[in-house]
Structures are given as C-alpha cells and as structure tokens.
C-alpha cells in the first residue's frame, strides 16, 4: 500500500538537508557561550543559522530570536507586548480563528485584567479587514493575527490591519502568528512588530522556532537564565534543531514561488474534486487561500471515522487541527457552519513534495469511505 502524507499543517517530514544539518551540528557540540575553539565554532554555526532564517524571513539577523517553537514564540510575544504597553491601555484585539496558543494566552491575559476582543470570521473562513478595523479602540495596545489560518488556510489581511491600527491606535503592537505562513507565502516583517514561526512546519525538527522582534522593542522574557538570545530566551541554544531550521528555511525560501504554485495547483484540483462529490468546501475565495491547506466536509459521519478509514487506505489527513484531538473545531464553529459540516470536516495539507497522485487517490477513496455512512 502506498502511503500519502497529507497532514503537513500538523507537522512535516524532515528534509534531507535539515537532517544533514542537524547531524553535522551534533558533531560541532560546543556550547556557543564557551570561549574555546569548540565554543567559537558553535557560535559561528549559530550566527550563520540566524542569518539564514532571518534572510528567509526578510529581517535583520539581530532581530531574530530562536525559541522552542511556535507556542513559546507566541507566548513570549503576547505576554511581553501586553505587559510592555499596559500603561497605554488594556485592550487586546485578535480573531476567533487563531490557534489555541494565541487564544489561551489571551485568556490568561484576560484573567490578569486585560480586555480581549476576538473578531469573528466570515462564513467562508476569511477575516474581513473592516471587522478588525471596527474592533480597534484608542486604548488597543496589541493586535495579534495569523498570517494563515491553520484549519481553513485563509490568508488574513495583515497590511490592511496595519494601516487601520496606525490610524486608530498608533501605540498598538502588531503580532503575526506566521507558523502556517512561513515558507508558504511571501511575508513582510516590516509590516509588523512581532512575528512567530515554527521549524517543524517547514521540514525541520520539532522543538524549535523563532520570534522576530522589531528593532528597538524590548520584551520581558518568559524564561530567566544565562541571558542567551539577547536575554529574551535563556537556555543553551538547541544547535541541531537550529541548524536544521536554517537549512530548511534556506531550502524553502529559495523555491518559495514555484513551491507555492505547485501546491496551489494541487489545492485547486482537490477543491474541484470534492466539489464534484458534493462536499462542502470550508474555504475563502481563491485569492485568500494559502497554497497548502484545503478544508472540506462531506457533511455526514464523524471526522474521526473518516480519518480511521482513510488511514487504513494509506491516506493520512486530519480533521480540523491536529492539536484538537477530536474536540470540535472552534474555527469552523466561529464560521457558523452547521453541525453536520463541522462534525465531518477534514483538512488536507500539502508540502512541496506531495505527489499529484495523492490527490487522485484521495478523491477515489473518499466516495468509498462515504459508503460507511
């Protein structure tokens, strides 16, 4: 049985170049903080890795901080920004389609006395710039948006939000959760103050990520310690992960446009196919779709049953987000979709290496599985 991995938004296979970089970094085992030759060698590798990831993001190396992953980056950014600006106001704006890393951090901040406004999505999963603009207040100090929604693949209006915030609340910091956007879409870090990314969504290792912090902005760290990463993130640098992250970032950014076009073609082919089967497509118009994510629902049965049956046929996808593990998707619920759609919703996510026949196999398998219901 051929296996097709169609759950790249959950995590990706490790790219050969990333694997090699990680293995090589294990041999260069010095502590980047040590003053001897081995330490200097590790420091050189760290600096080089930082330059690579920064180049892929289009930011200066000294504005990029390595972390343990997307969740830590988001926590650091949101808590740091909220506390930094709390003397200017206590209002935070985000959207109802964010990842739980954001939503639960905002909940914790709400418990500390901040007020949070979550902007609802449209029925197609897009988030309207006007709705975000309408949520901004003079005392808004932080706006946090995803670049790409991990469940629907909707691209959120970052530039418009930036412009609206500049007018309505110039003191507000803008954080972008680019975990699903990095390496898939061109990102403009100059349009935001903070930006979070994760390595394992990009072909590198789990347990690794980064946070971009605009030059001049100083945040309170979550982790105190030896002062690594400019004091923002203490702890000896995870060199194999960081080196792998850099290798994957180089590889993905070098081919970003062609990879995106390839995945977008698969996406449209899959969307046309599931539409022909009469399934609901839970995605915005084509211009607002990230290249690698398709969300659809046969509107009967339950996702977990579909997933088990498809898994037995060698097709690995997910229902909603992999983190939710069987819980109902808060994103699809916020979109106001009917219960039968949400309960059976499926998410397919591609990587640039996904073969075209994976889509054909899936489209052939779906009606077979549909006979279960």
């Amino acid at each position, binding site marked *: 049985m051929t296996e097709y991995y169609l759950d790249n938004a959950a995590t990706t296979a490790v790219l050969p170049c990333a694997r090699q970089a990680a293995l090589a970094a294990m041999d260069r085992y010095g502590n980047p903080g040590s003053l001897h030759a081995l330490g200097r060698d590790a420091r050189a590798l760290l600096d080089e890795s930082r330059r690579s990831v920064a180049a892929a993001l289009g930011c200066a190396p000294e504005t990029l901080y390595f972390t343990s992953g997307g969740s830590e980056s988001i926590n650091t950014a949101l808590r740091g920004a909220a506390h930094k600006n709390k003397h200017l106001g206590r209002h935070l704006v985000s959207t109802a389609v964010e990842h739980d890393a954001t939503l639960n951090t905002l909940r914790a901040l709400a418990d500390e006395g901040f007020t949070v406004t979550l902007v609802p999505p449209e029925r197609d999963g897009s988030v309207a710039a006007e709705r975000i603009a309408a949520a901004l207040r003079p005392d808004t100090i932080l706006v946090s948006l995803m670049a790409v929604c991990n469940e629907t693949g909707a691209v959120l209006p970052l530039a418009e939000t930036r412009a609206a915030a500049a007018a309505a609340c110039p003191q507000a910091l803008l954080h972008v959760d680019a975990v699903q956007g990095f390496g898939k879409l061109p990102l403009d870090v100059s349009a935001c103050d903070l930006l979070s990314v994760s390595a394992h969504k990009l072909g590198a290792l789990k347990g690794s990520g980064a946070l971009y912090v605009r030059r001049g902005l100083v945040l309170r760290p979550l982790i105190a310690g030896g002062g690594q990463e400019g004091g923002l993130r203490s702890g000896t640098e995870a060199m194999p992960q960081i080196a792998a992250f850099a290798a994957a970032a180089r590889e993905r950014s070098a081919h970003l446009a062609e990879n995106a076009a390839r995945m977008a073609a698969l996406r449209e082919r899959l969307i046309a196919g599931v539409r022909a089967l009469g399934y609901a497509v839970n995605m915005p118009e084509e211009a607002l779709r990230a290249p690698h994510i398709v969300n659809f629902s046969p509107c009967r049965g339950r996702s977990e049953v579909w997933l088990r049956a498809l898994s037995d046929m060698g097709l690995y996808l997910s229902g909603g987000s992999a983190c939710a593990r069987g819980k109902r998707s808060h994103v699809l619920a916020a979109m106001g979709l009917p219960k039968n759609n949400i309960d059976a919703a499926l998410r397919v996510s591609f990587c640039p290496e996904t073969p075209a026949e994976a889509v054909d196999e899936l489209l052939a398998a779906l009606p077979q599985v549909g006979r*279960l219901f």
Partner: protein
Amino acid sequence: MREILLLKCGELVLKGLNRYKFEERLVKTLRYRLQKAGNYTVTGRQSVYCVEGADGVPIEPALDVCARVFGIVNICRAAVCEKTLDSITETAAAYLGAELSRAKTFRVSTRRSDKHFPLTSPEIDREVGGRLNDLYPDCRAQMHDPELTVHVEVRDRWAFVHAAPLPGAGGVPTGTGGRGLLLLSGGIDSPAAGWMMGKRGMELGAVHFFSYPYTSEDAKQKVLTLAQELTAWCGRIPVYVVPFTHIQTEIRDKCFEDYFTLVMRRMMMRISEAVARQEGYDALLTGESLGQVASQTVEAIGTTDAVCGIPVLRPVIGMDKEEIVRIARRAGTFETSILPYEDCCTVFTPRHPQTKPRLFQVEREEAKLAVQALVDEAVAGVERIVIG
C-alpha cells in the same frame, strides 16, 4: 515479631454439605493470586485462613491481594505470639503500643477456639486488659464503645493480637457461582455489573462488540483495560471481540430508524448467547439499569429478552447512576470507563428511539435482515483475547 493476615469467611460457614467445595475454591484462589505477589503460605482451619510470608517478606502486598478476593469478609492484620498471658500482653503492647498511647479508652476482646486453654475468654479479657492498663495508665478501660479494641484470638497453636479488622471483598469465592458472560461496552455500568456477579462467585468472560472503523482501536483497548482491572477481583477473563460493523450497517440500511437500537440489542443478545453456549457460560450479564436509556425500559428489555434462551442477569437494574458509580469506583474501573472513546452503542443512534416498543413491531423490522446468517458470520469472526 511475626505478622500475618487472618482472613475471615462470611456466609461460607452457613453452607451445608458442599461447604468444603467453597473452601477449596477459596484456598485455591488465594494461593494462585498470592503466588504472583510473593512467597506466602496459606493455611486454614475453622473458616479462618492464615496468610504468612516467608522470612523477610512484607505482609502489605499480600494484604492488597487478599482485599480483592471474594469470599473473605474481613481481614485482620495480626501479630503472632505464644499462648501465654505474658506473651499475649507483651505482643499487644509492642504491636499496638502506638494506638494504646494515642487512645483514651480501650478494651480487650478475646475469642478462644482452643477450649483447653486454662482461662475463659472473659478471664483473658480482664487479665490482659489489666496488665495493659498498668503499662498504659492514660488509656482507660471501657467496655462500651471504646476508642480501641485489642483483639486476642487463642487458637490451636498460637495466639494472635490485632486491632480493628479491615473489610474484605465480601461475597463468595470466584468459581463457585457458575460462569457468566458479561456484555462489556466500555461504559461505567457493565464493568460494575461484572464486578457484582463476580462477587457472587461467578467466573467471568466478556463479550465486546467492535464496530471498526466507527469505533476505534482505542475503544477496544479501553475494554481490554477494563477487563484487566476486573481480573484483580475475578481472575482470568477471556474477552470475545465480535466484529459488529456489518450488522450495524445492515440495520442502518434496512430497518426503520426508531428501532435501530432495539434490533441491535437483539442481535447482540443472539450473538452473546451463541458465544456463551459455545464457550460454556451459564448466563449473560448486562449493565442495564431500568429506564436509564431508551433501550432499558421494561418494554425494551422485554423485546431483547425474547430472543435469549439462557438467563440474563442484570445486577444493577434497580440502581441509580450514583450507586453504580460507587461500585465502579470500588471495582477500580471508573477512571477507565470515563475515557472519551465512543462505543458501539452510540454509532447509529436514532433521533427518536422507541421507548415502549411492541414485540411484533421489532420483529417486523428485524425480518428485513438475514438474522441467522449475520449472527453466524459474527460468531465465526470472534477474536478471543485472554486477559489475566
């Protein structure tokens, strides 16, 4: 000081001429389970069994095992001593010294099964009580409702001293109540029902209906875990996993929705009965509780019983959910039961299930299925997994 367990049997002593069968079975169970816990010997007289570890083997693991052996009403963790007043007093002072220092009032309560011992039970009470009172003057002797009762047992070879007995599992020994096949779903009620019948001496098997891919491997694993938890009380449990998907899809495709659950329950009963006959079980056991769900009204139970030719025992039929939960907690199955995996009963739930079905209506729906062929197919596909 030698420490042992004295295990007291309850209603076994009321049995007549076949009492020895119950006792044999109990001792066999004790020896079998204890052998897994360590090097212990079991000796028995007069419906009291004595568990003693080899030199240096602690008694606690044996206590854990014995507390889950049905047929034992209470367990005394006791110190062994010579049958002299001096030895009994010394041992009581050493073994229960902490309790005697803490308590304000105490009494001594003696049982003397060795009638050749020179003092009677009340005389031993007075004598040992007096000497202990001299040693612990702050602890006053009080016959009625004292804080601490020092139990002295004078038996054939030794005397024993212990404080309050611990409750045993109760019931009658496993294997003396026939063999029952439990319909084990993964919920709270069916393991509790199995535990209750195990307590009445039944040797258990379990049948589980598996509806892959509608229910997951996790759900099946959960049922095997529940069976594992019951084995601590009931011993080895074979689990018969029945492939049930085809039957469920047939019911869904051919029967009127309101009768899905009833037809499904009747199919389960037929298959369970076939497995029971094939594997030598005398009865089916279910966790049904009257009126708890639509298929557990008396009318619905009537329609499911109609297809079953062997007794169906429903030990929790008259219990409230809280009472069942209490039993499940005692059995140690509750925490597993509440893990969130769907079981076969909720795959195709009717929107408006029949709560007062008439037998002819259910039979009419069922006539749309090739009942015998489906039952045969399911029974042929049974997977037997022995737990424990």
